[in-house]
């Protein structure tokens, strides 16, 4: 296992280079020079030229032969691609349009985003997996049917409606939760309760339906019957025997979702005033702040690469039949 992880990690730089190439193509070659965007209206040509310099658009795309002739061989790397490369690898993505340090923005935003999405994610995972196991246990019965109906209804309900309902009735009318707010640290936990619940509510339908299918596949397996014949209790059967066998599809789904946790939940963040990355991303897209978008894309891609490795390792951990070679 360890050697497999090491081997996979050795491949990772190659993948990172691939990601860099793709983001470079997207943000430097396809999108092209955004200096005039940055300059805004009525900018003079010299301002635009200065921005081109600042953002390196005045440099050749891949290699700088001219600089190499003038300043020696190493200057051949003084190109857009290698600067892109360097900024990504050092996680120093430069500054946003508003001249804020992008790495700071990302770090500041990731914490509130994760404070919201991680509880939603974990809560949703535990609830939907548990619920789906119970539903699978009572398949065809009235409990199963009603859960399926509620799930479909939940899925059809737009998240916006859920949010408006929660914020207006639960927080404003009934006063069960604060309407809006954010504090860093534990003091702010109370502000996260309602958005986290609403986020879970919004995701529950789809998740339960997905996991229910997974569980139904497994619960009819013979080993479940064997476990019951052994005298094992229902809960132990579900959480020990069923769950571990259902882990492969669960892991696949879960690991794919993790990188997106960093992006936060745009609507929940906006409505509940959580200063996360969701808004940063939307704002960056709206303003075509390619530096920020590139940084986000790069980080999410890397998380995906690591996530895939984690998926394989987790597969091997839960299922002895999977061998990592």
């Amino acid at each position, binding site marked *: 296992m360890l050697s497999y992880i090491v081997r996979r990690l050795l491949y990772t730089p190659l993948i990172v280079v691939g990601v860099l190439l793709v983001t470079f193509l997207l943000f430097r070659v396809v999108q092209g020079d955004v200096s005039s*965007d*940055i*300059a*805004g*209206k*009525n*900018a*003079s040509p*010299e*301002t635009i030229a*200065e*921005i081109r310099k*600042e953002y390196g658009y005045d440099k050749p795309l891949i290699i700088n032969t001219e600089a190499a002739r003038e300043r020696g061989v190493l200057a051949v790397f003084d190109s857009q691609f290698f600067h892109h490369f360097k900024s990504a690898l050092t996680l120093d993505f430069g*500054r946003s349009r*508003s*001249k*804020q*340090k992008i790495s700071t*923005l990302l770090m*500041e*935003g990731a914490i*509130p985003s994760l404070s919201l999405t991680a509880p939603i994610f974990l809560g949703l995972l535990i609830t939907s997996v548990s619920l789906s196991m119970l539903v699978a246990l009572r398949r065809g019965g009235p409990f199963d049917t009603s859960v399926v109906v509620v799930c479909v209804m939940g899925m059809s309900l737009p998240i916006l409606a859920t949010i*408006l309902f929660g*914020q*207006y009735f639960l*927080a*404003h009318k009934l006063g069960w939760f604060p*309407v*809006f*707010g*954010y504090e*860093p640290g534990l003091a702010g936990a109370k502000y996260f309760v309602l958005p986290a619940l609403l986020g879970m509510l919004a995701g529950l339908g789809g998740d339960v339906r997905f996991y229910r299918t997974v569980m139904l596949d497994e619960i009819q397996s013979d080993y479940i019957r064997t476990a019951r014949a052994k005298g094992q209790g229902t809960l132990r059967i579900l959480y020990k025997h069923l769950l571990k066998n259902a882990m492969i599809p669960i892991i696949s789904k879960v690991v794919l979702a993790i990188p997106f946790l960093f992006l936060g939940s745009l609507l929940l963040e*906006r*409505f*509940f*005033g*959580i*200063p*996360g990355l969701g*808004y*940063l991303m939307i*704002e960056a897209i*709206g*303003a*075509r702040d390619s530096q920020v978008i590139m940084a986000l894309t790069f980080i999410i891609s890397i998380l995906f690469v690591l996530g895939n490795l984690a998926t394989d390792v987790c597969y091997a951990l839960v299922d002895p039949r999977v061998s990592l070679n």
Partner: protein
Amino acid sequence: MYRAAMFTGSLVATLLLTVAFVGCGESGGNSEGSENGSGSAADRGPLVTYSATSAKVRGMDPMDIGDTTSSGVASGIYDCLYQYHYLKRPYELIPSLAAAMPEVSEDGLTYTIKLRGDAYFQDDECFKASGGKGRKLVAEDLIYSWKRIANIKNISKNWWIFDGRIKGFDEFREYTKAVKDKKDVDYDRPVEGLEAVDDLTLRITLTKPWPQVVFMLAHLPTAAVPREALAHYGDEFLNHPVGTGPYRLKDWRRGSKIILERNPTYREELYPSEGEPGDEEAGLLADAGKRLPLIDQIDISIIEEDLPLWLKFLAGDLDISGIPKDNFDTAITPSRELTPEFREKGIVLKVYEEAATYWYGFNMEDPVVGKNQPLRQAMNLAIDRDEFLTLFLNNRGVPARGVLPPMIAGYDKDINSPYTVYDPELAKKKVKEAEAVHGGPLPVITLTMGSTDSTARQLGQWFARSYERVGITLEVEYMDWPTAQEKVKTKSAQMYAMGWVADIPDAENFMQLFYGPNGSPGPNNMNYKNPKADALYQKLSVMEDSPERHELIREMQQIVVDDLPCVFTLHRVAFILRYDWMKNYKPHVFGYGLGKYRNLDAELRRQRVGR
């Protein structure tokens, strides 16, 4: 917030109209408060006012500020040479960092400005020589601050303020271009037109007369910043503001909250003792002569969505708020008054006109619309502006018949503009004429919308239907704002949604939009060109304000409404709600940094909402 951007960004999409808050801009950073009349504020703890803004503050370096939200907040921290009188109307400038209004030379080229000697930068660790004690502001500080804007390495958006105006300043900018690194720029390099005669005397020499310069010296980007702060904080200066203003930054949780607290070393500045008629009765002079600021702390939440903002206001967590479109009917009666239910809560409504005009511009270089005056007349005639206001703005606006909004000197409510009214029958006749001019049936006209949301689509459909009724086929294309702007700038949009929010209370600010040489990518994005108008603009732009100048403005406006390079739609009217515990509230459409005037009846607030 529709004052979307100050000078630089005053072009706004008409669509922004649908956003209903004056959460920032006017009320933006500057909510209210005051010690209550009884004067025992000390034992009640600090007076804190709560307000919200709907956009995030990006940074607080005056050099880079271009949006209303950041302006609203930073203006509490920074001072300019001049400021608007809080109460007087029409709007009037008074000294801020300056000791008096400038002495202007005969030829209108030299401005000599005396500084008051009692303005200090707030205490900050960047003042290492004095162990963190704030230093006295001197004339050099202003020159340094402006040179930062000129330094091309800083890529400031605000260079247009000085561009071509001050002697030797463009050469300084030229010089910075050649410097390799922005750290190497020599700020001590002399600029002929910017001279610190002594510590407290500043002399500005212009390249040509420019009466509006005083307004610019009240514009936040020209505020004074200390060199020490830049040396200390470098690129992070935008997160560590150090100013001379009434407040200083206490806490900034990016994206969620900004707290300003009283600057203890703020110079002695007093609440005005005179205003316009009615101010006294409105209680606006109750604090006359008191030392500013009146409130100890300004707490600004960033609330992007309407619903939570509205709910927070209703709960009394915010002292002031705009009215979301969806909630308008619950708060305002059809006769434009506050509903009794709201009045009982102690909520007060203030309605005021904004200094803005919105229109749908034509690209005058377009072979179809640009060359066909009857077509443009028809397209103006076909629009029912009242219906537009009802459908899309809860009637929060008045129809626009010309360029200037009501409060700008030169506005003419009886303007001779027979085509900026709704007359479908006349429009149909004009369409016939237009076909004759065009030499055949009219082609499809394309309208570019800089938004893709549902309101934009409804607007587009409404326009298409209005034109269909008079025989004009309109096709609407929807795209994001930057893309639409790009189309406009490259003259490839035929017709597009646009607007202008005045930066200064002067008609020139609008008239520049119709000056030929300002064509795209300049502010005249309609690429309108009329030699008579150009000649008038050249004259009025360098004149001191006077009745003769007003006449020139009127003449130029008349030429524009005769040519109709756009479909004028409306001027906005703002509806602001506040609780009665917030004192000294008077809307101001140009000024920022008004928080220092506001006061708060904390006792009343406690009674009403227990806070």
